[in-house]
């Protein structure tokens, strides 16, 4: 073979290797948002969307973070059998919703699209597309490369001169400095490829005590709309509406409780919906709010809805989809397989609200959890027989009757016998869990041994470090600490 041809072949091979390695590096450097590290797990939600079987989703939700927290596809499936997916993301402006709908239509043929109207308002006037650059990237980066993404990036960069189109293709320009903060999930694809909740994200905190619903006072009042509306968002709403009509999809606009609302906004959106033959549901309105039936503060549908609020909202939405839009229930293994995960999520959310000692230990007795216990000063004085029995039922072997003012630790890992030790001296233990991927360190110092409690997971301290039992609960499926609590000497009520 002539030397020149050999040279060309070698160059092509080398350049291919180089390009592959650089693409791989860029993929590692890109930030990832999953349950483990984010309230709104955008990366894993979008990756999961691409794993869904084609043409199996009947309803798609779009919108900002409030939409992500409001509509739970699993709850809708559990209650009405409707197959839906939530493609919302933090600060998802209508511009981004439009391009994500366009992308979704490459793989799915939904019958209904539900769009949250919050980002029709000019919420970030300082940003060209009503969203900060970081959150735009959070939404766009996980999109697969196609004409749709190229069009989105091109449109975005022509609107926002501060953004570089090239940096969406060569993401190292934007993210290469992340090399110094890479984590496990950056290097293990399997951690961000799946989102069992199908775009939904749960919040466990309770909401406000009260909410003032919206009641239309003047159906002919149209002012107070233009000053708050973003013309670009309106333009993209028109495009999104047209896209739905082209694809014979019914579009429903929704305003969620907590969104900015007045007569001007309500009447204009109602008129827009009527003019374009689409539907508009203003859930801020008293009628709808009461129909949803959420009871504050536990069932909060205000702003970022919590789990219990979203259950109510999703059930209501499921019924609406079923009755008004005629979406039929379809059994599907993709939703069936995640039922147990969802049930566990509900238990996770309930755990931080459990105060009673006995109930708490019953709740954390689950194969999903790793539990770490460390005593500071004294946990035994005042302990009752019922509490001792609870600890025994939980699986601990130690007899706490004669362990007054002693150091004590326990590690309860799924599928393993509890590791526990008690002593008058200070105690320290380190070990691995999650197949050695995570490392824990526990220090327990009783009354005569220094009075301290340390529970570290992967170098981060979680112990409340107060007198009594200090407990940290780690959820193995979402790979994060979901609760850290303390029960004082003989106390039956949790201290957080």
């Amino acid at each position, binding site marked *: 073979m002539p030397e020149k041809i050999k040279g060309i072949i070698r160059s092509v091979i080398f350049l291919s290797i180089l390009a592959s390695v650089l693409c791989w590096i860029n993929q590692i450097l890109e930030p990832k948002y999953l349950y483990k590290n984010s309230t709104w797990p955008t990366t894993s939600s979008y990756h999961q969307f691409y794993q869904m079987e084609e043409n199996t989703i009947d309803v798609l939700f779009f919108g900002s973070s409030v939409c992500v927290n409001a509509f739970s596809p699993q709850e809708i499936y559990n209650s009405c059998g409707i197959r839906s997916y939530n493609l919302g993301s933090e600060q998802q402006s209508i511009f981004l919703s439009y391009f994500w709908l366009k992308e979704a239509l490459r793989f799915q043929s939904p019958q209904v699209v539900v769009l949250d109207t919050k980002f029709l308002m000019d919420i970030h006037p300082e940003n060209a597309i009503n969203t900060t650059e970081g959150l735009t990237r959070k939404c766009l980066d996980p999109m697969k490369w196609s004409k749709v993404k190229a069009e989105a990036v091109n449109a975005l960069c022509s609107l926002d001169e501060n953004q570089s189109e090239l940096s969406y293709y*060569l993401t190292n*320009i934007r993210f*290469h*400095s992340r090399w110094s903060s890479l984590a496990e999930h950056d290097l293990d694809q399997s951690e961000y490829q799946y989102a069992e909740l199908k775009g939904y994200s749960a919040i466990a905190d309770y909401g406000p005590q009260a909410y003032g619903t919206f009641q239309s006072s003047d159906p002919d009042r149209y002012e107070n709309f233009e000053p708050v509306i973003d013309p670009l968002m309106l333009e993209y709403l028109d495009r999104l509406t047209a896209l739905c009509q082209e694809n014979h999809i019914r579009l429903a606009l929704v305003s969620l409780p907590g969104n900015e609302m007045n007569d001007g906004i309500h009447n204009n959106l109602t008129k827009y919906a009527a003019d374009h033959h689409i539907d508009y549901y203003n859930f801020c309105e008293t009628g709808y709010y009461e129909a949803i039936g959420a009871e504050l503060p536990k069932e909060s549908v205000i702003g970022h809805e919590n789990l219990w609020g979203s259950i109510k909202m999703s059930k209501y939405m499921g019924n609406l989809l079923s009755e008004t839009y005629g979406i039929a229930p379809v059994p599907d293994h993709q939703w069936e397989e995640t039922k147990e995960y969802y049930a566990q999520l509900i238990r996770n959310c309930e755990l931080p609200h459990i105060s009673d000692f006995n109930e708490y230990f019953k709740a954390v007795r689950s194969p999903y959890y790793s539990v770490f216990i460390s005593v500071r000063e004294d946990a035994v004085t005042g302990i009752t027989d019922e509490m001792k029995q609870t600890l025994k039922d939980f699986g601990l072997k130690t007899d706490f009757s004669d362990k007054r003012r002693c150091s004590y630790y326990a590690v309860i890992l799924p599928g393993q016998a509890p590791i526990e030790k008690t002593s008058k001296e200070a105690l320290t233990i380190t070990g691995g869990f999650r197949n050695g991927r995570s490392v824990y360190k526990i220090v327990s110092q009783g009354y005569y041994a220094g009075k301290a409690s340390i529970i570290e997971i992967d170098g981060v301290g979680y112990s409340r470090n107060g007198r009594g039992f200090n407990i940290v609960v780690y959820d193995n499926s979402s790979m994060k600490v979901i609760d850290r609590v303390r029960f004082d000497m003989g106390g039956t009520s949790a201290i957080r």
Partner: protein
Amino acid sequence: MMNYVSFVFYVFLILLTAVYYILPLNFRWLVLLAGSGFFYYFTIYRRMQLVIFAMSIGISYLFGILIQHLRTRQWKPGWKQLILITGIVLSVFPLFGSKCTDFFLGCIVHKQKFPWIIPVGLSFYSLQIIAYLTDIYKGRIDCQRNPFKYALFISFFPHIIQGPIPRYQQLEKQLFCGHRYDSDKFMKGIQLIIWGFFLKYMIANKASVIVDTVFNNHMTYQGLYVAVAGVLYSFQLYTDFLSCVTISQGVSQLFGICLTDNFNHPYFSVSVKEFWRRWHISLSHWLRDYIYIPLGGNRGGRLCKYRNLVLTFVVSGIWHGASWKFLFWGLMHGGYQIAGDLTHDLQEKIYGFLQMPPGSRLRRLFQQLVTFCLITAAWIIFRADSLKTGIKMIRSLFTFRNPWILFDNSIFRLGLNQKECEVLGLSLLLLLFVSILQERGIVIRNWFVRQCLPVRWSIYLCAVCGIWVLGTYGFGFDANDFIYGGF
């Protein structure tokens, strides 16, 4: 805008290289001319810059022919000289005009500067034109009669922004003859480009983060902060300029053209005099040949020599920038050399007292250290906002005590975290290692060529990926321009 580290430049370069080697040998210089025009057009921000640049090329081309024509005519030398000076003044008027008015308005009468339109590479191509016309006048070269070839000589894109400042006789044959593809040369060119990126992204840009923090907040950061920033600026300036020249050399080598070296490990110098033989060599040679020697050089006794030296460095200072600080910086270097010359005997006595004989390693190291400190002090003036600020910063080195900043992590709060500082430190060590090898005459690229394919590929991959990940560039950092491109 296009520059030597922009993505579009490399797309342009790949296409240009392909076209260059596809066309017949005789036409290859035309590809370079077209490429240079294209590159220049995409580096400017106003079309008028292009017009001024073209006018300079046109005027100097015509004067080149005229001066050569007059060489054989029996005119009085004074007339010939007048034609030469007229040619130089007209050709490089934008440089003269901008420097003189900027200095007069900005530093003497303190008025707003005149809004000159400065073509890209003005300071560099002006010196190139002066050398060209003078060399024709002196009979060292013959003028180029093909206007397009002359335009290529002036505008050749790898050196237009930051040099090195080439002489016509160095480039004449290389530029116009057309080169056959030589894989060794080509790969060496790529190696130089990668090395250039390493210098720019791993050292210059990283150092600039700390340097900018300190120099832009000089009231906050005093004492040892100034020393740290001063030392880092010395390396930043060196590696930034060296990277640009290295990339220029690498790009030229892709077309089979070798540009001269502009640096020879300047911080290994044992005196300021030697420093100027190693730093920005093409400028130093230019100043020597077209300023210092015409002024009289070493002839006419010590006093004349010192006068010529000072005048040469004044020109050098003003060339870098029309302000007091650059003038002072030039005077500092002139002063260093005069002081070095005057105290030569005293220095020998001191070294004798310290038992450091000539040629000893320790003496050499000591001299290198002293020279580096003197050069760094001058760089502080060079980098500071103004002469007054620069002097204040140097004064704070001696009046403000804060040695604890070296131990309490204060350094890591200047914009670069500890990991980034460690990368910077390792990169500087690598530069030192390579420089020592080169100083000993070992050419790493020759060793590299001898290695088998997997070793070479692995090194390329590591180098590119290392810079890709660890370099300082992109979002949150905007220093695509090279420092010397601004002069």
